[in-house]
C-alpha cells in the first residue's frame, strides 16, 4: 500500500492520517485526511472507501463521497449507520486509516446550469460539483433542524451561497426546498440529487414531467470498488451498471432504483 501514493491509477490503496473528525450533528461527522495525491485527483463524482478496522472485522471499506478536496486534504461527511461508521466516529485525529480511492466516475456534466439538491449527508456527494461550477450551480440542502447548526455552518463555510432548509424551520431559508425548487426545470438545466430513498422518491414525483433532466446519485453495497465483483450493479436502460465505476450518477428515467 502506498503511504503517500504516487501511482497514477484511478483506484489505489492508501494509509492516510486523519487530521480532523468532528461531530456536526446528531450522528453526523466530518472527517478529513491528509491526502495530497487524492486531493489533487479528486473530481466531483469521486468517492473513497474507508476501512474501519485494522483487521478483517469489519473487512469491507465503507464508501463515502469526497465532500471537499483542498490544500492536500480530502474530507468526507458521514452519518453513523451501523458498526463501521460507529467505529469511524471514534477515531482520534493522529490515527491513520486505510483508504481506497478514487472510486466513482467524475460526473458527466453537460448542463448549462445545475441545481444540486441534497438530503442530510447526501450533501457530501454534491459539494465538489458546487465548487467546480461556482455560480453556475446552486446548492439546496435539507436537514432536520435544531442540532444541525454545525453541519449548516460547515456547508456555508465552504459554499456561502448554499441554501439550507430545515424540517423544523429552526434556521435556514424555510422548511422545505420543495417549495422553491423551480418546476419545470427549463431548457439546459439539470437537477442532481443525493439523499435517503424517500428524498429521491420525492424528487422523482416532483419532476415527474422531466425525468430526463433529473439525475440520482445513488448508494449500493460495495466490496471491491474497482469494478470487479459485480456487487454494486444497478439495472439501467443501458443494461446492468456498476455504481463504483460506471456511477454513482444515473439519469432518473434510466435507472431502476427499486431493484432490491
Amino acid at each position, binding site marked *: 500500500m502506498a503511504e503517500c501514493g504516487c501511482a497514477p*491509477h484511478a483506484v489505489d*490503496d492508501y494509509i492516510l492520517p486523519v487530521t480532523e473528525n468532528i461531530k456536526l450533528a446528531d450522528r453526523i461527522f466530518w472527517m478529513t485526511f491528509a491526502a495530497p495525491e487524492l486531493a489533487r485527483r479528486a473530481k466531483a463524482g469521486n468517492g473513497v472507501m474507508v476501512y474501519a478496522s485494522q483487521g478483517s472485522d*469489519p473487512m469491507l471499506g465503507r464508501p463515502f463521497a469526497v465532500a471537499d478536496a483542498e490544500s492536500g486534504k480530502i474530507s468526507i461527511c458521514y452519518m453513523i449507520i451501523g458498526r463501521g461508521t460507529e467505529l469511524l466516529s471514534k477515531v482520534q485525529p493522529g490515527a491513520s486509516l486505510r483508504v481506497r480511492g478514487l472510486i466513482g466516475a467524475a460526473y458527466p456534466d453537460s448542463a448549462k446550469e445545475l441545481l444540486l439538491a441534497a438530503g442530510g449527508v447526501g450533501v457530501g456527494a454534491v459539494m465538489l460539483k458546487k465548487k467546480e461550477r461556482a455560480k453556475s450551480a446552486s446548492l439546496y440542502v435539507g436537514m432536520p433542524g435544531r442540532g444541525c447548526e454545525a453541519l449548516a455552518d460547515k456547508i456555508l463555510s465552504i459554499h456561502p451561497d448554499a441554501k439550507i432548509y430545515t424540517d423544523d424551520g429552526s434556521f435556514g431559508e424555510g422548511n422545505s426546498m420543495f417549495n422553491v425548487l423551480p418546476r419545470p426545470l427549463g431548457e439546459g438545466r439539470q437537477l442532481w440529487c443525493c439523499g435517503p430513498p424517500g428524498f429521491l422518491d420525492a424528487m422523482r414525483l416532483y419532476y415527474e414531467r422531466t425525468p430526463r433532466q433529473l439525475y440520482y446519485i445513488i448508494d449500493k453495497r460495495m*466490496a471491491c470498488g474497482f469494478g470487479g*465483483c459485480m*456487487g454494486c450493479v444497478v439495472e439501467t436502460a443501458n443494461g446492468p451498471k456498476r455504481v463504483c465505476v460506471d456511477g454513482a450518477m444515473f439519469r432518473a428515467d434510466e435507472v431502476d432504483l427499486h431493484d432490491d
Partner: protein
Amino acid sequence: MTIDITAKIGSIKLRTPVIAASGVWPYSPEFWSGERLEGLGALCTKAISLAPRRGNRGIRLWETPSGVLNSIGLQNVGAKKFVEDYSALVKNCPVPVIANIVMESEADTQETLRVLEDVEGLAAAELNISCPNVDGDGMSWGLSCDSTAKATAAARKAWRAPLWVKMTPQAADPAAVARAAEAEGADAIVCANTWLGMAIDMCSGRPAFGRAVAGLSGPAVFPLALRVVWQVAGAVGIPVVGCGGVTTASDCAGMMLAGASAVEVGSAFFGDIGAGRAICGGLPEFIGRYGKERLTEIVGLARIER
C-alpha cells in the same frame, strides 16, 4: 540466497503462486497489464456461460465477521461476446489467463468450451461445478461423485488444454469428489469455491438475498478451506490449488505446506488491491524458514513427519 517463488500447476508455469480468483478481477485494460498484475501468477476470468446472464436481482453482497456473502449469480456477457470483447485483453495479458466456465448442461458447457477454444492466451479452463448462487446448474453438479464425474468427462471431451475442476466445499466427501474428477481427466483441482451461508436483513426480518442462501468467502473460511486442501491433496495425484480466505503470505504458504501447488485469491483484494504483491513479498521468509530455496519444495511439506 535468492528464493524462487515460481509455481507449477501441471504443465503451467506461473511466475508466482498467486492467482486472482474468478469473480473479482475487472475486465478493464488497466487491470490486465502493468503494475496491477504485480505479484500475480495468473488471472481467472469471471464465470462464462454459453448465453449471457444478467445475474441476481436485489442485494448481492452482505458483510459478515471476517467474510462476505455474495449472490452475484454468474452475471456475464456469454461466451460469444466474451470472445469478441475480451480476446485482445487475454491475448496481451502478461500472465496466463484461466477461463472460469459455468457448468450448465453437458451440451451447453461443451459448446462454451468450443467457442473459447481459439482464444489465444487461455492457459486453462476452470470448470465451475460449485457456484451456490444459481438454481439447477453450478453447485448441484459438484455435490456428488457421479455428477462431478459426468461434468468433468463432458468438459474433457470438448477441451484439449488443461482442465481444472473447481470444487464446492459443500460436497459431503471432498476427497472422493476430487478423485472422481481426477479419474475423468481433470488436470488440477481447485479447493474450493464459496461456502453456503445465509443472512437475514434485520430491518425487514426476511432473508437478505433473494435466493436466501449465498456464498461465503474471505478470511473467515480460511481454516475450513485449508482443511479441504489437506483432505484433497492427500487423495489425488494431480495438483491442487488452494482457495478460500487466503489473505497473507502466511495463508498462502500454509495452503502450500498442506499440499497446494498454488492459491487463488479473491476477497483479499477487497481490502488490498495489491494483495498479490503483499503475499509474494512475504513468501521468501517462509520458504527460507524451512530450509528451502524454492517455493515448489514446500508443497506438501506439512504432510511429512519431521
